[in-house]
């Protein structure tokens, strides 16, 4: 009897509701578990990717390595939601946001504890791992 092949579906742990379970960058979840937010960088041409990719469209190489997102980025824009899609109602209110790190940008959420009047476009932010109440993992932007 052959052993049933195990499916590596670690990515189902990403975000409040994940719509993807299997990806070549499943290690992203292991890094989140360790408190690290990681992108990838092509070892052949130097392209930097966030979100991380397994494949480089620039030189078609699959030789990519992980790098840790560190330091500060700047808040490009955000929006605070009053309504949410199905499955996200329990998270309300929350803000989606875009932060620019110079050689890459990151889309995510603002940390829930930043008062509205302290959020300013251009403000410096850092990206940190966040554990959601339902046990899922994502990352949020905090004031740097």
């Amino acid at each position: 009897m052959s052993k049933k092949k195990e499916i590596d579906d670690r990515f189902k742990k990403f975000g409040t509701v994940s719509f993807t379970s299997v990806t070549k960058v499943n290690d992203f979840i292991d890094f989140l578990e360790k408190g690290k937010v990681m992108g990838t960088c092509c070892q052949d041409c130097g392209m930097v990717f966030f979100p991380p990719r397994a494949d480089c469209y620039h030189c078609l190489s699959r030789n990519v390595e992980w790098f840790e997102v560190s330091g500060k980025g700047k808040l490009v824009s955000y929006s605070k939601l009053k309504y949410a899609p199905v499955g996200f109602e329990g998270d309300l209110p929350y803000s989606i946001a875009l932060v620019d790190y110079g050689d890459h940008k990151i889309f995510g959420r603002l940390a829930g504890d930043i008062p509205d009047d302290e959020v300013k476009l251009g403000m410096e932010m850092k990206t940190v791992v966040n554990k959601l109440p339902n046990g899922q993992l994502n990352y949020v932007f905090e004031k740097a």
Partner: protein
Amino acid sequence: MEKVAIIGVGQSAFVRGYPGSIRELAFEGFKEAVEDAKVSVGDIDASIICSAPEYDKQRSPSGVFAEYLGLIPQPTCYLESLCSSTSTGLRMAYSLVKSGLHDVVAVLGFQKMSEISSAESQERMGRGADIQWESPFGTMMPAYYAMFAKAHMEKYGTTLDDLALIRVKAATYGPINEKALFRKPVTLEMFNDPAHFMSGPVASPLRVGDCCANADGSSCLIVATEEKAKALSKQPVWILGLGAASASVNMAGRDLITGLAVARQASEQAYKMAGVTPKDIDVAEVHDCFTISEILAYEDLGFAKPGEGRELISSKETYKEGSIPVNVDGGLLSKGHPIGATGGSQIRTIVLQLRGDAGKMQVKDPGVGLVHNIGGVGLYGNVTILGR
């Protein structure tokens, strides 16, 4: 060079809760277009069926529609680029006709959004974005466009009132468009009255009145070769320019957040192909899925410089009597937005305008018209320039 024409246009009324199935909904727009073109169904050599996926139980609607509309055994296929599906369909029909493969092609767009709840619909709309990296954060269309609004307001000083004035304009024309879902006037005071539903927050800074609504509808365009058009039609409208572009689905891949790169690229292509400039456009339809979207469109299309879109609306230059009338059929904000049918409805409006058939919405003697139709959050951009 052989030209390509639109010889017939049609659309259903855009409604909430269409009392029929999707094939019956498709028939509404189709019947009007075929009757408008004064052709027989047998004259149509091929059909392209367009919608955004996942609203229907029916997989592959093209075969079902072709049978229901009497378009078998001619070839048919299904095509989508979210909210710009029918504009993409027109682009493909142009290629089929221009290549000589077919003489007359029907482009049919439809969407029946009312079979699912508004929240489920938002979830599907959110999944029109990057499902691997963005949707898990709880994204939805208004919030994405709200990020563009926030950045535009911050950089250029565009105000909430500027946004509201776009809706006020849309609502000026909704009442005179018999196909529109919203037929009532909207005032600036409604936006500034905290008790009025129009002022309710959706995704900051956008409010209820800044957002278009889901609807059910269909639209249809009959596209023909120059020879067929001249033989069959008294008033063919010619496709002068076509532009199309795509962008990173993930916001992290966008360099521009105060405009839509796809609209800038698509319009540049369309202007070049048509040999015209923004100043030559006499009437336009732009993709006002949100109020901010119309202001971005003014700038991306070159009707105003970046940051100066607000001046076009505050000076009423985009009203029917202004220098560049925009969305004088009420736009998506008044008509409602049945995703796959929207582009065809926009194109229909410009065709009617150029023929002088737009009734109460008619602008004075337009010669060249433009359609700006966007899929997703600037994921797909289509710009079409039409002329008499």
